[in-house]
């Protein structure tokens, strides 16, 4: 334990002595910081204090000195633990106070982060040994690290949005302006009801979200019932639907709808020529966004509801039937009430997704402004009004958080608890005829429509100019992804740059996301500690924060010292990490709940510490889950747009923001071609994953079979 403390102390000393304290704009290249150490902007803490007499850093230097004194003091046992805990807690507080209040010339850099981590881990190892000499430093350290990361990259930015919203023009803080903006007429007005134009964005968002939530739940239920309770043949095809939202870049559905129903769309043309309908822009507005959101989010509802529908215990239905209830009565009075919490959950999910959706309203919204797009326009519009963006962000956040809290409350605290398999035999009864026909009538045309929409992506990418010049061409692909062998390979397509940046950032973000997510899952499933419920809530919260809000909160928080990240690739990676973290957490929790806890305990009683247990027992057994978390966060990073669009920079342009640019210029062909390439990229990734995971499963089955065949095992 003392050894751990000495290691962290050494790390802190090293950071203070040899790593630059502030971000140094002059230093370029990986090792250039060394030469910069001697100059004022690039100096380390030690050099700033000793040579450049930076008085603001004195307290931090003193803290470091005090920590060293504790570590070498010769105290031991509980005394040492108490001394270490208190001194490092004070040091950390001093460092945080410095970061928040001092007048910093630039953003903090590696020296500061190194020192902060070392103080944090000195604190956690102190805490872990407060109770006994060999407390679990690894677990306490992990808890500390996750808390600090989530605090820094989820709560700190949100706090910035709040402070932006509550700041008065004269620099002081107050609620007067906030309330006037929050309840402003232009946000909430209802003139659409009285026929005078459109409503405020908050009203629009709410109305759209309720409609989308209800409709996706109904459609999802119809699909789920068909998939689980009918003799329908192509069930596997239905299940493939669930992969669609994961691999669909955000604008694709909107664009495909434009190709079908826009002024130059196929359907519009057809209706005009054969039936004499006027060519209108009806698809731009509520209807278009609603249809696009239905297409986007129905598969999510389907996925949730399959679990719900299957979760209704067949024995209950059988019991009902033995009491002479008809199939319809059984469904109406037994199954449906049992599904009610699941239906509510699906509704709230659809509701949140719709509120947070950015791509579809951006492409199809027209005059129908919703909060997420209004936030974007408040930042990128003619006059950037970050206060307005902040207030709109808070309005949006209030709605999504409200729905999130409702969902948590509805599902109870243990929403994680998977249905643990008490073998419940019996078969789900089939639907009654009327119900079945209704489901087919609703779901099958919708499935066909989905297929048409997705096939538009293919056609859209090979048609020269949709509606005007319908000849087939590969020009869009060559413009985006052209390459040339004339002298060596040169990639001269316009999209290569952002394509590779996207892959690189996503590939860097994926392992970090998986790491944070799985570490959190480990703490949630396997560890008991004070405040665990709050911890769980905090880590899941980022799920309920819409991407646009993340976007503005990051630019508000990380554009100024103490932490300056805007314009770097790091801010993109971090944004992905904390946006996709809940996915990793959920996956990890599900996988870890399947691992018998006695495996960990066996390892621990055999003398392994928690870290060794995680490394040698849990991680190898979680293999497939880790892989899935990796691929999933990779894919999500590729398709994410709402947060990204605020955070990209000239040096780090991402695929989705490139596509937004094309869409805004009306170059649909190239945008769709790019989307098609992204879809194929992601399909390849998912395919590879299935191959690897599938083979592992095969391998196991193989071993089982060998086991059964082996004659020796039968003896003894």
């Amino acid at each position, binding site marked *: 334990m003392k050894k751990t403390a000495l290691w962290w102390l050494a790390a802190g000393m090293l950071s203070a002595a040899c790593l630059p304290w502030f971000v140094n704009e002059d230093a370029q290249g990986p090792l250039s910081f060394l030469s910069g150490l001697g100059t004022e902007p690039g100096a380390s803490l030690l050099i700033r204090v000793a040579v450049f007499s930076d008085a603001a850093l004195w307290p931090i230097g003193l803290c470091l000195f005090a920590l060293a004194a504790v570590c070498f003091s010769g105290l031991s046992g509980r005394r040492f633990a108490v001394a270490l805990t208190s001194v490092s807690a004070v040091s950390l507080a001093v460092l945080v106070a410095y970061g928040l209040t001092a007048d910093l010339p630039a953003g903090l850099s590696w020296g500061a982060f190194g020192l902060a981590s070392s103080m944090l881990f000195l604190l956690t190892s102190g805490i872990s040994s407060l*109770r*006994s*000499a*060999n*407390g*679990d430093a690894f677990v306490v350290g992990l808890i500390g690290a996750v808390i600090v990361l989530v605090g820094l990259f989820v709560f700190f930015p949100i706090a910035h949005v709040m402070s932006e919203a509550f700041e008065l023009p004269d620099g002081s803080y107050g609620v007067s302006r906030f309330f006037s903006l929050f309840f402003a007429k232009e946000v909430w007005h209802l003139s659409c009801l009285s026929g005078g134009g459109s409503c405020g964005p908050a009203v629009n968002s709410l109305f759209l979200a309720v409609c989308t939530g209800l409709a996706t739940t109904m459609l999802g239920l119809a699909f789920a019932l068909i998939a689980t309770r009918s003799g329908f043949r192509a069930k596997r095809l239905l299940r493939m639907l669930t992969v669609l939202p994961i691999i669909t870049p955000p604008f694709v559905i909107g664009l495909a709808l434009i190709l079908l129903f826009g002024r130059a769309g196929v359907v519009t043309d057809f209706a005009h020529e054969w039936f004499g309908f006027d060519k209108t822009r009806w698809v731009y507005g509520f209807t278009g966004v609603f249809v696009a959101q239905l297409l986007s989010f129905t598969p999510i509802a389907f996925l949730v509801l399959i679990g719900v529908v299957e979760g209704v215990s067949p024995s209950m239905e059988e019991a009902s039937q033995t009491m002479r209830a008809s199939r319809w009565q059984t469904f109406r009075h037994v199954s449906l009430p049992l599904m009610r919490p699941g239906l509510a959950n699906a509704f709230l999910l659809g509701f949140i997704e719709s509120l947070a959706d950015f791509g579809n309203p951006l492409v199809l919204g027209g005059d129908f402004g919703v909060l997420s797009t209004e936030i974007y326009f408040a930042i990128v519009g003619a006059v950037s009004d970050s206060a307005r963006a902040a207030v709109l962000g808070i309005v949006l956040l209030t709605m999504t958080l409200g729905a999130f809290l409702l969902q948590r409350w509805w599902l109870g605290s243990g929403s994680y608890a998977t249905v643990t398999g008490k073998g419940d035999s019996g078969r789900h009864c089939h639907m009654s005829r009327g119900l079945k026909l209704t489901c087919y009538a609703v779901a099958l045309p919708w499935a066909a429509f989905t297929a048409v929409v997705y096939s538009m992506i293919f056609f859209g990418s090979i048609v020269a100019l949709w509606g005007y010049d319908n000849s087939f061409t590969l020009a869009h692909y060559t413009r985006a992804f052209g390459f040339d062998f004339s002298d060596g390979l040169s990639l001269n397509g316009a999209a290569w740059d952002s394509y590779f940046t996207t892959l690189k950032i996503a590939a860097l973000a994926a392992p970090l996301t998986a790491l944070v997510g799985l570490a959190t899952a480990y703490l949630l499933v396997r560890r008991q500690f004070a405040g665990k419920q709050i911890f769980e809530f905090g880590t899941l919260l980022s799920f309920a924060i819409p991407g646009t809000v993340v976007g503005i909160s990051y630019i508000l928080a990380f554009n100024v010292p103490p932490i300056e990240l805007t314009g770097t690739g790091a801010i993109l990676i971090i944004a992905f990490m904390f946006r996709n973290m809940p996915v990793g957490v959920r996956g990890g929790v599900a996988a870890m709940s399947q691992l*018998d806890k*006695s*495996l960990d*305990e*066996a*390892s*621990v*009683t*055999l*003398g*392994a*510490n*928690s870290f*060794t247990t995680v490394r*040698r*027992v849990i991680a*190898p*057994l979680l293999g497939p889950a880790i892989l899935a978390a990796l691929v999933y966060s990779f894919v999500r990073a590729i398709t994410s747009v709402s947060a990204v669009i605020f955070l990209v920079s000239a040096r780090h342009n991402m695929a989705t923001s490139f596509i937004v640019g094309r869409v805004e210029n009306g170059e649909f062909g190239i945008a769709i071609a790019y989307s098609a390439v992204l879809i194929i990229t992601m399909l390849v990734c998912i395919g590879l994953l299935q191959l690897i995971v599938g083979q592992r499963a095969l391998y196991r089955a193989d*071993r*089982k079979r*060998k*086991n059964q065949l*082996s004659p020796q*095992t*039968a003896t*003894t």
Partner: protein
Amino acid sequence: MSSQSGRVQMQGVQKRYGEVQAVKDLNLTIEAGELVTLLGPSGCGKTTTLRMLAGLEDVSAGKITIGGQDVTLQAATYRNVAMVFQSYALFPHMTVMENVAYGLTVSNLPKRTVQAKAEAGLETVGLAGYGSRYPSELSGGQQQRVAVARAVVLEPEVLLFDEPLSNLDAKLRRHVREEIRQIQQDLGITALYVTHDQEEAMAVSDKIVVMCDGEIAQMGSPLELYTRPSSAFIADFIGDANLLPCRVAGVEGDSVDVEIGAVRVRSRSNQALGKTATLAVHPHNLELVDLGNLNVIPGTVRMAAYLGDHMEYAVECEAGELFVADHRMTHQHQRGDRVGVRVEAENTSVLPS
């Protein structure tokens, strides 16, 4: 293989889960090299006690020492205690050899020592040559023995078993429990063993601790518990005894005369008794005879079952239903027969009601 065995002491140990008091003020000493069994109905705190000793659960109050050293605040990793789990908890991604070597490997012993000790461990449980298999390629009994090997190669001071046999079928259970007892005695390890099954407990233990509601109801050798239960609960739990309400007619030292209706029995008791008490009689100490005999309890046979080496009867009488095991089988009674039940006084005991 030798092992330094330790004496285990739990003093005033308590465990609370919020409102639930899973273990209340437990005082227990296990002498070095002894095998002690925790026995009791479901939810009485056996597993909790075991896990506190392993360090997997914090104690809410009290003190635990192993080999004289206070380990109350020590984490499981650092306690010289090994545990065999009900589910075996073999690591499915490691071979049998890797499983057995795991504890040695993580304590950074040299490779050669690890190999040698692990092989010796497998030898001890009779599984030499199975090292390269995976746990999924072994039968249940073999897996259980691997789990034992994995625990004993560390030469722990204390070995813990939590219902180690409950996943095995009845025949194998008998076999493996003898093996476990053998290994424990050969190595001279102190052991604490949790089970539901009183026959298993009687068969393997030096001492049995019966728990009830988080407290020790009685502890002692199997013989003591069987012949001198201290309460009706023990008599029922250990010996499936019939509990007959009776009237105390006279006390002389530790011999007591009691009356059940008109029947008078001389039994013994070492506890203070009131006017009424409970007579505990094992089923095989009751005999069915003709009604005409003296000093018998009259009753009607309600159920008769033939079980090969003995007959079982349920007899309805005034004091309640009596459960009789007849090993002599001189006469088979039928359902509905009027019979007299004779009590063999030697092996009964009188308990406070």
